[in-house]
């Protein structure tokens, strides 16, 4: 059956929603990376720089995520002042708004404490308390989609864990890339040069672990769609099969296989393995790897949103003898 896009207005039209999903996950990931690097300072002072970079970058990522999700509304100001307007606590958009709002203070205060260099113990406590909020924020970017209930491409069992994992992965990539691009110009350059090899190695190992997890999740996702495709639909049209084809063989196939799987996952994976084996050109290899991972994370959000536009058309197409009455 021909895939059908019945929606007149789509979240991907101006890219604001996919960007919100990406930046929301990134802000959460950067915060988690910052806190982890904060605790890793005991091993090497260079991690303090990683923590600072990640903590500072989490602020614009979080702020832009909020800006983009507000801009996409027909009435943006009501989104900005959502506590006064959002009233349906059965809607995941309301929870998403609160997750965005409540994770903000942790991200901002944690970065501010790094900036002023005060109260390191308080900073770490805020970091530890803030991590669940950051994860909750990343989960809510996925639940915004899954909560719409009728989209076969947005299963609740896959998207939250996929988005949290991707958020941490892109968080590591952004922090790593920023470190590589800036460390020569930072005051602690001498110290950083000494520990750079160790930091890159840690980043590479982290990336490999999260990439392998992402591959497993994507494999589960494809299996989920194809398994449902084997199940006859009571509507006479199996939309899981339609969406599966749309992703792996249809209009999204190039974006998915070449963009996400190829450039966004497999090439960075190979680069990481080469880096570990060869132990040469670490900075160059890591730089390319991190950049590709960021592109992959962005593509993932766009592909997920694009795929969600293919929806079941519910009228009884098989309905000569069985025309269901809706509602």
């Amino acid at each position, binding site marked *: *059956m*021909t895939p*059908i*896009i*019945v*929606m*007149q*207005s*789509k*979240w991907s*039209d*101006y890219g604001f929603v996919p960007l919100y999903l990406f930046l929301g996950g990134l802000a959460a990931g950067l915060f988690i990376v910052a806190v982890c690097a904060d605790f890793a300072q005991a091993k090497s002072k260079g991690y303090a720089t990683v923590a600072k970079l990640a903590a500072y970058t989490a602020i614009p990522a979080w702020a832009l995520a909020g800006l983009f999700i507000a*801009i*996409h*509304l*027909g*009435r*943006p100001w*009501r*989104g900005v002042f*959502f506590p006064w*307007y*959002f*009233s*349906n606590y*059965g*809607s*995941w*958009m*309301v929870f998403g*708004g609160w997750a965005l709002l409540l994770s903000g203070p942790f991200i901002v205060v944690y970065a501010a404490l790094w900036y002023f260099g005060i109260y390191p113990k308080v900073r770490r406590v805020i970091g530890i308390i803030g991590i669940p909020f950051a994860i909750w924020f990343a989960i809510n970017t996925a639940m*915004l*989609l899954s*909560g*719409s*209930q*009728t*989209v076969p491409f947005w299963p609740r069992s896959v998207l939250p864990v996929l988005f949290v994992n991707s958020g941490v992965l892109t968080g590591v990539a952004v922090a790593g890339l920023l470190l590589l691009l800036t460390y020569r110009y930072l005051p602690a350059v001498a110290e950083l040069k000494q520990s750079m090899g160790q930091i890159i190695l840690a980043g590479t190992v982290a990336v490999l672990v999260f990439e392998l997890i992402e591959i497993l999740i994507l494999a589960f996702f494809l299996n989920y769609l194809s398994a449902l495709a084997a199940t006859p639909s009571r509507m006479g049209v199996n939309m899981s099969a339609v969406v599966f084809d749309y992703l792996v063989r249809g209009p999204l196939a190039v974006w998915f296989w070449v963009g996400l799987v190829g450039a966004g996952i497999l090439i960075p994976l190979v680069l990481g393995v080469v880096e570990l084996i060869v132990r040469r050109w670490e900075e160059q290899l890591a730089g390319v790897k991190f950049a590709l991972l960021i592109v992959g994370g962005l593509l993932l959000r766009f592909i997920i949103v694009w795929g*969600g536009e293919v*929806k*079941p*058309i*519910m*009228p*009884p*197409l098989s*309905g*000569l*003898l*069985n*025309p269901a*009455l*809706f*509602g």
Partner: protein
Amino acid sequence: MAKPLMVTDPSAGAAPAKAQAARMKFYVDVKRCIECGGCEVACKNENNVPMGIARIRVVTVNEGQTGETNVPIPCMHCTNAPCISVCPVDALFTRADGIVHVNKETCIGCGYCGYACPFGVPQYPSGLAFGQRGVMDKCTFCAGGPEKPLSDRERLMYGSNRVAEGKLPLCASVCATKALVAGDAVEVEKVVRQRVATRGYGESNWGWSTAYPTG
């Protein structure tokens, strides 16, 4: 024999008795739709629907292939409407007679209902500055909106209120093949049951005469 077509027959003039207590429904018979577009034009004209918005659309599935099917898609006014459950600001609600309405004063134009709706019914104005989505517009079952019935403001914001005038939605009223049936769920169900029973005799028995056994 009952006269089920009366539920959408404009000559019948009136909505079912006890309209306020009724559960108003559309039934879409995809075997009858001939994609004439009469429902779309009637809806646009009756409700002054803005450019770029279609409160009812005829979607053709498998066009040019075996099994080509035309599906008129108005709002189905679901009993458990997913659009209502996802709306963050409670702009969508169900009236006592089962019609799902949107309050355009409350709607923030997030587009969430567009993804929740299995029929792709919610529509948004296009061409606004900076690509803004505007607030949602949808089929009202020709029952106006949450404003004073038959007022100018209601007509301007939501279109006509034929239900308040004792009439049924114009799209179903003008449907030449009665592919669209609208009215009280009990009455609509009778039509559906009759068609199922009629077609249940087998494919070979299918035809206009058997589809309308009462003539």
